[in-house]
């Protein structure tokens, strides 16, 4: 076990226990591997929070500072209160989800949670002189100025976004500091967050989306706000069943108080720990991140490891102890490949949490939840897949902070593409499941999820809450992975590498859009790519090319030649330039380019030898093609495969009969 005591940082204040106040001074240090700020840091959060396991609630005090990035005064603040999605069945989240989320249900008497702002006030002093949290000497109470708003629908019962009208607008470039007291009641784990009681009666907490969190104020020219707009605007959305999050980069300093025997993991770096009266207070600091999440439980094991500059901490359920190394190995694989393919991981910590149920498979800055199963065999790699995927979000969401509400393909989809590439590169064929006869690779899983799931429905570029659940899963994860894999094969891996590096270098610690990514692709490719992005990212075009027929007409006279015609079809509305490989009976091969435009296309040959085979896209560039089986046609049927399957089936049936015969 590894504990950090007082390492690291600037002075922080602790007030807990029976009125006891204790001051501990800690020297300052950066939480990234760079000395200067990496992001714009429009926000700064300081929080002191206490977890009460008996009520599964958190009492918190927050001091949040926001800097107006606009060139005009701003008279309103907007906050997310995500936890109110679980307040009751009337929230937009619960109405949209029907109480089900990714295979888990919100049920039981203790399923509800929520967040209340008990007090909100403007701190008049400059942040450095503001006094202890919640006790600013001069303040203006704003509690009554809080109103719930519903930017996405007319559900007046939804309480996941609030607007606060300020008595005085914040001047351009100026800062405003608020002190907020809040109470967060955690729901029983559902949709990533909450608590769960384990079999041994201990409690596990995954505390996420849990505090009042500022939305993003987008200035003119940022993302889709017109550059000539008179003023910027807040971009906040209600918490939806099919959406994740969007926030500005900033700094977090959070003191967490929990029972002494609890192990705690959180975003950022632990910079202090004090134990008193059976309670433990740990302080975390995180710079240049846009969220803060933590976990706490009395029944977690802690292990540590190191990858270059990154201290990796694993908090794992005791029953999964045998899989500690698998977690670390997967995390290091992800760190290696992301470092190589995109760029440097700028933080010096990474916390892996083996959560419970619906809390697993989620990303937060420098903290991810993985999830595994007791006795998971080596040939099944869901643990590695989830760990690599969630780590990937440190880039696609964490650093390249696109708006997950509005462009989910940019985080989930790009991440799925890289996850697929890492899995299949590192683990090879059978990267997901590797048993004799069944070698399932991540690329096949992604292709199957898109190609066999109504591919004509659901564009990638769409507001997530307007998507059906099945379209969200496909258009946010699998389809982007297949689209980007096709793009990679079309442009080549070298070009794709340049695209990824450029995208990372240009947009890390910012909020890129689809438009920004396309601009980089076109820049690297040196050609307009609207023909690709319009139908497959903004649209729902489906690619299906087929060899319809091969006709060989023998020569009618001695010394004559075969007249051969191959008929190709574009069976759906998706267009993609193709290479057609024609093999002749004498073994010669000719590759023919086809622009793929026409619905029907004929290739004619006049040769001494007839056509033996026609193969569209023989190098499998176009992963988007929904039916590869019809891409290829032989003149003479091939029967070896059928014979082998017949024999396999025969033997399998014979074995089955013996077994059903009671081993007779």
């Amino acid at each position, binding site marked *: 076990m590894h504990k950090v005591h007082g390492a690291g940082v600037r002075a922080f204040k602790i007030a807990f226990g029976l009125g006891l106040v204790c001051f501990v001074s800690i020297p300052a240090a950066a939480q990234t591997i760079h000395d200067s700020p990496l992001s714009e840091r429009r926000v700064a959060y300081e929080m002191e929070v206490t977890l009460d396991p008996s009520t599964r609630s958190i009492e918190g005090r927050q001091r949040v500072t926001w800097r107006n990035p606009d060139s005009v005064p701003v008279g309103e603040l907007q906050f997310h209160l995500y936890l109110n999605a679980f307040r009751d069945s009337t929230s937009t989240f619960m109405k949209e989800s029907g109480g089900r989320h990714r295979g888990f249900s919100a049920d039981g008497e203790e399923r509800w949670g929520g967040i209340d702002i008990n007090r909100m006030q403007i701190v008049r002093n400059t942040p450095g002189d503001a006094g202890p949290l919640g006790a600013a000497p001069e303040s203006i109470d704003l509690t009554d100025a809080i109103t719930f708003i519903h930017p996405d629908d007319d559900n007046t019962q939804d309480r996941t976004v609030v607007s606060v009208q300020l008595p005085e607008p914040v001047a351009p470039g100026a800062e405003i500091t608020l002190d907020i007291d809040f109470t967060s009641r955690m729901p029983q784990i559902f949709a990533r967050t909450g608590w769960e009681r*384990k*079999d041994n009666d201990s409690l596990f907490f995954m505390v996420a989306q849990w505090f009042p969190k500022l939305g993003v104020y987008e200035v003119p020219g940022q993302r889709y706000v017109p550059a000539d707009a008179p003023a910027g605007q807040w971009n906040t959305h209600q918490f939806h069943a099919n959406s994740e999050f969007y926030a500005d980069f900033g700094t977090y300093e959070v003191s967490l108080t929990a029972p002494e025997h609890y192990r705690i993991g959180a975003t950022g770096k632990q910079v202090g720990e004090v134990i008193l009266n059976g309670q433990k207070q740990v302080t975390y600091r995180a710079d240049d991140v846009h969220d803060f999440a933590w976990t706490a439980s009395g029944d977690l094991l802690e292990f540590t490891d190191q990858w270059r500059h990154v201290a990796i901490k694993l908090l794992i359920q005791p*029953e999964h102890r045998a899989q500690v190394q698998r977690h670390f190995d997967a995390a290091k694989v992800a760190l290696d490949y992301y470092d190589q393919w995109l760029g440097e991981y700028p933080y010096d910590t990474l916390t892996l949490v083996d959560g419970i149920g619906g809390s697993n498979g989620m990303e937060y800055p420098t903290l991810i939840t993985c999830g595994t*199963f*007791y*006795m998971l065999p080596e040939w099944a790699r869901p643990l590695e897949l989830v760990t690599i995927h969630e780590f990937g979000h440190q880039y696609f969401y964490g650093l390249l902070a696109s708006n997950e509400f509005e462009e989910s393909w940019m985080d989930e989809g790009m991440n799925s593409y890289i996850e697929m590439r890492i899995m299949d590169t590192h683990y090879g*064929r059978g990267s997901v499941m590797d048993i*004799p*006869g*069944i*070698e*399932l690779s991540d690329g*096949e899983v992604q*292709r*199957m999820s898109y*190609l*066999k799931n109504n591919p004509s429905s659901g564009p990638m570029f769409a507001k997530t809450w307007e998507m059906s659940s099945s379209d969200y899963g496909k258009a946010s994860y699998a389809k982007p992975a297949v689209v980007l894999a096709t793009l990679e094969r079309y442009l080549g891996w070298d070009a794709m590498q340049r695209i990824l590096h450029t995208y990372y270098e240009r947009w890390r610690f910012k909020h890129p859009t689809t438009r920004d990514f396309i601009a980089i692709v076109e820049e690297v490719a040196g050609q307009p790519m609207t023909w690709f992005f319009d139908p497959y990212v903004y649209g729902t075009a489906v690619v299906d090319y087929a060899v319809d027929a091969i006709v060989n007409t023998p020569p009618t006279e001695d010394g004559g030649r075969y007249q051969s015609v191959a008929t190709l079809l574009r069976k759906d509305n998706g267009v993609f330039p193709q290479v057609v490989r024609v093999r002749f009976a004498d073994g010669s091969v000719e590759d023919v380019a086809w622009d793929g435009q026409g619905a029907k296309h004929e290739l004619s040959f006049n040769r001494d030898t007839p056509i033996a*085979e026609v*193969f569209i896209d023989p190098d499998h560039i176009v992963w988007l093609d929904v*039916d*590869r*089986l*019809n891409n*290829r*046609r*032989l*003149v003479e*049927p*091939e*029967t*070896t*495969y*059928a*014979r*082998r*399957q*017949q*024999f*396999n*089936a*025969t*033997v399998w*049936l*014979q*074995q*089955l*009969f*013996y*077994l*059903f*015969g*009671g*081993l*007779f």
Partner: protein
Amino acid sequence: MSNPVSTSIRAGLDDARRRPTLVLLVYAVNLVSALLLSFPLYQLLVDSIGQSGFGDQKLLDFDILLWQEALVQIGPSLDAVALQLLWLIPLYMAWRVVAGVGLVYALQQGGTWPFWRGVGRYAPRGILLALIWLLIRILIGSVVVVASSALAAAWSGEVGTFWTFFVIRPTLLITGMAMVDLFERYGRLALVVRHERTLSAFATGAVWPFRHGSASVLYLFWFFVALAILAVPTLIGAQGASSAAGVWVAFLLQQGLLLVRAAVTVAWAGSEVALFERVWMAAPSAVVAGAPEAGPAIA
């Protein structure tokens, strides 16, 4: 006195060696039953994807997407073929019972034709006996499912779930079914060798293995031998021969093993007949009064 188990095994092996016709009969019925379904599969695959050109690739490079695309085409026909298992499996199980009494009779009497005489003479009572044991199998299966579910409720969490459903339940089910199989085998022996009536044979089968521990040892020996031989063809198939000749060679190797498996069936039955008769001869008072052909008859 020599070890009854090893003596019986030797006797069973001798039976299998001396009665190749019985071995071939067991093998042929098994093979033909399987071919009834696998022949249509061949034609389906040739018709649907024979011209696709992906046959070679799939031999060498398993691609679940191509498989899925092929299944879209042949799925409905494949379902129709698979549905035939609904009548074929019960029929095969009935054949197992019928052949069981025939084998015991033939191995006791010698020669091949007694097999069919045994079938004609004892099949109805053999089937009745099997039905009684089928009811008991269902009962045992139900008890195991209910008991393991209750255990899972008490031992919740993934550790409990794993051990309950992946270890305890399958172990109990396999053990229960194997025990019933053991009882049924000795009931069948009582039926044919001692000419007992069905209920009497049922009772004999249920107690005989408990009174004679060598019966259980003998059963376990053949159980694991049979299982091991049955598993090897799967390993050969998994090697994935890619040429037409390789496919045939692999299949012939697999069939060779399944022929050995059929010989095990005969040897297994022969060794049980030998053990049963050996014990019976040592205790002639156990002969059931009024049985039509009472008395040991060693082939």
